[in-house]
């Protein structure tokens, strides 16, 4: 700082000018003041708010419209990009539906809408379809409006397996849109070459040394750890069996499999790429994707099995957020998709498990081979071995997901 000033008069003048503009104590204080103000403003951002939320006023009677947030590839679509079942709904009911593919991931979707949810404001959707565990968080926090059964007479068609969830036992707040079964997907040919066996039957088959580095699992905690927990004899529906200790025990086991390189890929929706290019031979994966993978392969290249210790089942649920202003319209929509005929048409396209009783018979009329597909219209024996992960308290959810994400991040 104390170098002698240069002799050149122009340089000298420039340096003097620069010095005059250097930070004085006053400007420093002003800067600090401004930062403090900004900090104070930031601190005013919505924080904890424990008042009970009330539903927004329903304007369905006068405004025949509705906004629906859903996942991609989750609606029957024709070659021109139209949604036939949805357009028929508009024609029949006069309710215009703005269908938005807004959910790509439960966590990121929640991150996007959580501030509005917390204050009971409109999240931009009258009906949305997050996955069960996320929906449970919304219901438990009181972010969701109660559905009016009188407006959904087709609720009678709900498959009984979907009743009894701890956060919403009678489905008063949520209704399943599509069911998702987590199990083992494998590349038939590659699996046979690597292990000499036709198909995996248990979770232990994934830990075969011949498959080292070629096993994938889902980055969805409830499916991956749920299936591992079941293979360890834990009942994932029961809080007395699925304790924090049992969970952490399974986490440690899983961590060992990741660290010794047995499990190479831990992914969300994009795991299908690894099956496609052959990186993954066997994986913990979702049933609906297996159907679509086979369709795009043009042959029965991949198999899907429920491991002998059992599979996880979950669903994406229709729900109406507190700030939604078209609840009756949303109920009409839910009722529409609980009509077996519409449900069958939808299931034929999206290939997930339909929660609607009677859809199978309807599907028989469209495409008998489709109706035989256990992964879309599972039989009762098939369903008997699937369980859903019990709902977690806020604290459990935080510590469980932290432990799971820590493995994904490695050390």
């Amino acid at each position, binding site marked *: 700082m104390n170098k002698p000033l240069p002799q050149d008069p122009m340089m000298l003048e420039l340096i003097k000018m620069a010095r005059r503009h250097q930070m004085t104590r006053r400007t420093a204080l002003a800067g600090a003041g401004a930062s403090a103000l900004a900090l104070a403003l930031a601190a005013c951002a919505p924080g904890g708010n424990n008042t009970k939320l009330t539903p927004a006023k329903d304007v369905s009677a006068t405004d025949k419209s509705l906004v629906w947030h859903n996942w991609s590839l989750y609606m029957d679509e024709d070659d021109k990009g139209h949604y036939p079942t949805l357009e028929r709904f508009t024609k029949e009911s006069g309710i215009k539906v703005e269908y938005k593919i807004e959910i790509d991931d439960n*966590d990121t979707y929640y991150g996007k809408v959580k501030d509005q949810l917390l204050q009971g404001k409109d999240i931009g959707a009258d009906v949305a379809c997050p996955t069960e565990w996320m929906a449970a968080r919304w219901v438990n926090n009181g972010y969701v409006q109660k559905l009016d059964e009188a407006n959904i007479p087709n609720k009678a068609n709900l498959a009984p397996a979907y009743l009894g969830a701890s956060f919403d036992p009678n489905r008063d707040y949520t209704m399943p849109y599509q069911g998702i079964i987590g199990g083992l997907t494998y590349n038939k040919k590659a699996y046979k070459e690597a292990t000499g066996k036709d198909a995996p039957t248990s979770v232990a088959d994934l830990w075969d040394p011949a498959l080292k580095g070629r096993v994938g699992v889902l980055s969805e905690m409830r499916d991956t750890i749920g299936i591992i927990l079941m293979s360890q004899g834990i009942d994932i529906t029961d809080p007395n069996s699925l304790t924090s200790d049992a969970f952490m025990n399974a986490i440690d086991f899983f961590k060992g499999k990741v660290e010794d*390189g047995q499990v190479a*890929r831990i992914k969300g929706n994009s795991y299908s790429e690894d099956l496609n290019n052959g990186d993954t031979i066997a994986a913990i994966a979702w049933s609906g994707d297996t159907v679509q993978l086979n369709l795009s392969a043009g042959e029965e290249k991949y198999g899907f099995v429920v491991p002998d210790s059992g599979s996880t089942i979950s669903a994406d649920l229709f729900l109406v957020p507190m700030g939604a202003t078209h609840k009756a319209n949303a109920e009409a929509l839910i009722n529409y998709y609980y009509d077996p005929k519409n449900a069958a048409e939808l299931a034929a396209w999206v290939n997930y498990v339909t929660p609607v009783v009677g859809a199978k018979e309807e599907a028989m009329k469209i495409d008998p081979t489709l109706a035989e597909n256990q992964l879309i219209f599972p039989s009762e024996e098939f369903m008997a071995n699937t369980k859903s992960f019990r709902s977690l308290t806020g604290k459990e959810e935080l510590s469980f997901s932290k432990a799971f994400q820590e493995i994904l991040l490695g050390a």
Partner: protein
Amino acid sequence: MAFAAFSGGSEKSEYKVPRKNSTKVALALLLPGMIYLALFFITPLVSLVATSLEVPDASGEIGRYQYGFEIGNYWYVIQTYWPHIARSFVYALAATILSLLISYPLAYFIGVRARKWPLIQKLALALVIAPFFISFLLRTFAWKQLFSNESWIVTTLQSLHILAPDQYLVGTDFMVIFGLTYNFIPFMTLPLYTALERLDLRLLEAGSDLYATPAKVFRKVTLPITMPGIISGTLMTFIPIAGDYINASRDFLGSSGTQMIGNVVETNFLRINDYPSASALSVLLMAAILGLVVFYVRRSGTEDLL
């Protein structure tokens, strides 16, 4: 700074001392820029720092935090994630050095050797920039496919016993550094090119007239003259690489053993909604990079870049 750095060196220009009464005009002209900075830089920065000091609220629900002056968040993230922080800087250093080693000869060819053939020079320059016409994600993904477990590259390496039969490339440190180097090479080549393009060949001639070997001419003349280009090139690769989270992501070239600080921020922010930890990590990353850059630029004696 970035633009000054990109130009690769300081040019002397005629400078007129402005008259005093133009200060108001100058301030008025600065105003839009200042407002922009305040809105899109200062405010997010303050908000980031404020978030990094938050504490969980009474509800104990996931993702619910309130303002508190919790400096301990910084200790927590350093203790928990120091391997990821260290890994980020090691990867960034390795990839920066590799891209310098690849880019320098390339830039030398384009900027010096190809001067005789302007068409080739332009074409080579276009080829350096050409990958930018395709999305960064897509290119990274293409590498993942090329190096996939069943690819001929991997099977060849396995049959040559360079890789063990149950060893693969995707998900290894090598693969991530490879991806980082590949993706950031243009950011190194271009500043080097601008520095080398202006290299006065008569200086090299003078060097050999004084009986210096070509290696010595390079060390004593070419390298010092192009130093500003090297500095700006390394800064423009090192800084973004240290914060990159695509290459190391499990969806691209990485695995759970290669996660960098950017991936940790993503996980904390989006997966476990631990906003204070994510913010504290971001602040730390910024501070660490700023500190390193200041140190580096001071050491290499090119303060005029800052």
